[in-house]
């Protein structure tokens, strides 16, 4: 009971912290100058239509690299947690599952490729329209998810998924490294290592699309392996 | 005028001989007085001489080891040493003994010399429990020391000197400038301490007769006992002379010395006969009460 009172007091304290913010908060009427230069540079220098993607991939490329690393660590951590030869783990017993109905199976088989293509579409023109590597990767993961849900016998091939995951991660770092090599000391993760191409087309904005595809692949495979680990067959 | 070292030694030895004989006689007289007070006929005055001769002439002795040997030697050399360091007769250069080489502090600490030696000797004696006598003696002595030190400090401050000769010099010229009258508190404290030092009646639990089975005297016999007896004799006279010099104006001639020291010693006998014997912790506590108060008063009102 005291815990409830204490937490009530603390939440009241929190509110006293938040209320002054709400009260004398003045919304922006104009873009801060950093955002202004982003908008101009985003389109002219990097040739990307979607400014948010420009910021995420090149301007604040290190953030995204870090973010991909975060996802990678989370996936590895989960894999470490659910590793088979856990010391105090009893013999993993196989849980029996009813196989799902016919309609579901065929429906999923029909839908899977469509969603897959949709995912690829999302991260392919991340620099043109909203969306990008992360959203695309999530969509791909949902494909795998659907397959898990539909037929219990579906096993993702860990060798290929692992390979894609590491390959895309490493190539992402190599692209960044190319920036350093080609463009000089300050251009780590610069997308201008490739020609900017014609504004608005798929192959424009230098390395952004390539980076975003790699990110997409990586996020997709990672989330898939996370789901697989968490689903796991050990009880 | 400086007399040569040789004459100084000779005169000091002569002084020692006089004091030694006077001591023996005084001991005899004092024991006769005590006997007469107790209604007994008492021993002949020359009895101490007889005891001494008997002890020294004994042929067989036994010894319990080196330290047993050194006990009486330490004790007697303590007595004689104390004699040598105290100026006997004020005024004549012959009877200063070797007092130039030390002051009251030397005398205070030299008393320990004899006592420590005696304690070690008894420790090595035949009777292991003789140590109980020693521990009582030491404990009592620490308590006695307090009023005695305070008295001496107040005298030293009063006369601005530590050397006995100058103190006596300051007290010459009539009774009124004896320390007795100029600094009464110090004298009272001093005399209380004198009682303790002489180990007479109220505080003689160490030398008391029934302590004999474990007291130091029973351990020693023949020559050793002779030495101890001669030391006791000399020591009592020398202590009396010391207190005479400090408190009662010193002596300008041997006669004056003998009379004064007799009466000083008589005080202890006088008090001793009347009072019962104290246990050691009572003695210690008693000495840290009234005599201590007097000592503090002496020091504060010097």
């Amino acid at each position: 009971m005291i815990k409830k009172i204490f937490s009530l007091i603390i939440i009241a304290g929190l509110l006293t912290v938040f209320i002054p913010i709400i009260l004398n908060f003045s919304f922006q009427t104009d873009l801060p100058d950093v955002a202004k230069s982003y908008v101009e540079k985003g389109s002219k220098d990097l040739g990307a239509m979607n400014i948010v993607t420009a910021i995420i991939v090149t301007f604040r490329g290190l953030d995204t690299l870090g973010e991909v690393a975060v996802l990678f660590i989370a996936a590895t951590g989960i894999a470490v947690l659910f590793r088979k030869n856990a010391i105090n783990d009893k013999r993993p017993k196989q849980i029996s599952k009813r196989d799902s109905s016919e309609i579901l199976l065929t429906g999923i088989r029909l839908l899977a490729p469509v969603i897959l293509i949709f995912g690829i579409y999302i991260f392919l023109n991340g620099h043109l329209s909203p969306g990008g590597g992360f959203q695309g990767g999530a969509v791909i993961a949902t494909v795998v998810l659907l397959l898990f849900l539909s037929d219990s016998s579906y096993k993702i091939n860990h060798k290929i998924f692992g390979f894609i995951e590491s390959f895309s991660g490493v190539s992402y770092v190599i692209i960044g490294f190319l920036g350093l090599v080609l463009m000089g000391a300050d251009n780590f993760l610069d997308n201008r290592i490739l020609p900017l191409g014609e504004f608005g087309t798929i192959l424009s904005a230098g390395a952004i699309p390539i980076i975003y595809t790699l990110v997409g692949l990586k996020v997709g495979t990672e989330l898939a392996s996370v789901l697989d680990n968490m689903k796991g067959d050990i009880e | 005028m400086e007399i040569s070292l040789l004459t100084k030694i000779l005169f000091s030895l002569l002084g020692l001989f006089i004091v030694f004989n006077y001591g023996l006689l005084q001991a005899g007289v004092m024991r006769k007085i005590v006997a007469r007070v107790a209604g007994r006929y008492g021993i002949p005055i020359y009895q101490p001489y007889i005891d001494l001769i008997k002890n020294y002439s004994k042929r067989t002795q036994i010894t319990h080891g080196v330290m047993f040997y050194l006990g009486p030697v330490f004790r007697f050399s303590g007595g004689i040493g104390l004699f040598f360091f105290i100026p006997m007769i004020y005024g004549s250069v012959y009877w200063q003994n070797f007092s130039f080489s030390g002051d009251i502090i030397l005398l205070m600490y030299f008393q320990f010399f004899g006592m420590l030696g005696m304690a070690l000797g008894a420790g090595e004696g035949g009777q292991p429990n003789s140590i109980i006598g020693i521990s009582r003696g030491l404990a009592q002595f620490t308590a006695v020391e307090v009023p005695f030190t305070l008295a001496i400090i107040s005298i030293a401050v009063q006369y601005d000197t530590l050397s006995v000769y100058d103190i006596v010099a300051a007290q010459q010229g009539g009774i009124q400038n004896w320390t007795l009258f100029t600094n009464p508190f110090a004298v009272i404290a001093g005399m209380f301490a004198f009682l303790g030092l002489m180990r007479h009646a109220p505080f003689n639990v160490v030398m008391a007769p029934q302590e004999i089975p474990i007291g130091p005297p029973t351990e020693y016999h023949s020559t050793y006992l002779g030495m101890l007896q001669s030391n006791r004799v000399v020591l009592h006279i020398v202590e009396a002379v010391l207190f005479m010099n400090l408190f009662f104006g010193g002596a300008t001639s041997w006669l004056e010395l003998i009379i004064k020291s007799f009466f000083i010693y008589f005080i202890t006998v006088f008090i001793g006969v009347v009072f019962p014997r104290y246990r050691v912790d009572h003695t210690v506590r008693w000495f840290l009460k009234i005599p201590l108060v007097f000592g503090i008063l002496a020091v504060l009102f010097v």
Partner: protein
Amino acid sequence: MNLILILGFMLLAIGFWGMLTQKNMIKIVIGLTIAEVGVQIIMISIGYIKERTAPILDSAVPLADAVNKVVDPIPQALVLTAIVIGVAVNALILSFIIRLYKEKKSLSIDDYKEMKW
């Protein structure tokens, strides 16, 4: 857009309330997710400017004066990263909960007091 800011803070408060009072560990994580959604709403509402469109320079937004046509893109970039990280953390926490459940077969946080003082 003050309303959305208020909404964000309320969701944040509800999330924390959930974390503090709910005993079930999964409910605590749900509380955490709600708090995260709250923060993300606050971040977006700060970036929003009235009557402006999304920061995509497509046909609707002429290149020339895009500057005063577009909403602030930076908070959106930050939120995007924050969401992904939030999901990663939540996935990890949940797998820890599964692991813990395997050990002590209990979801209440009060049962996990092995280490104290």
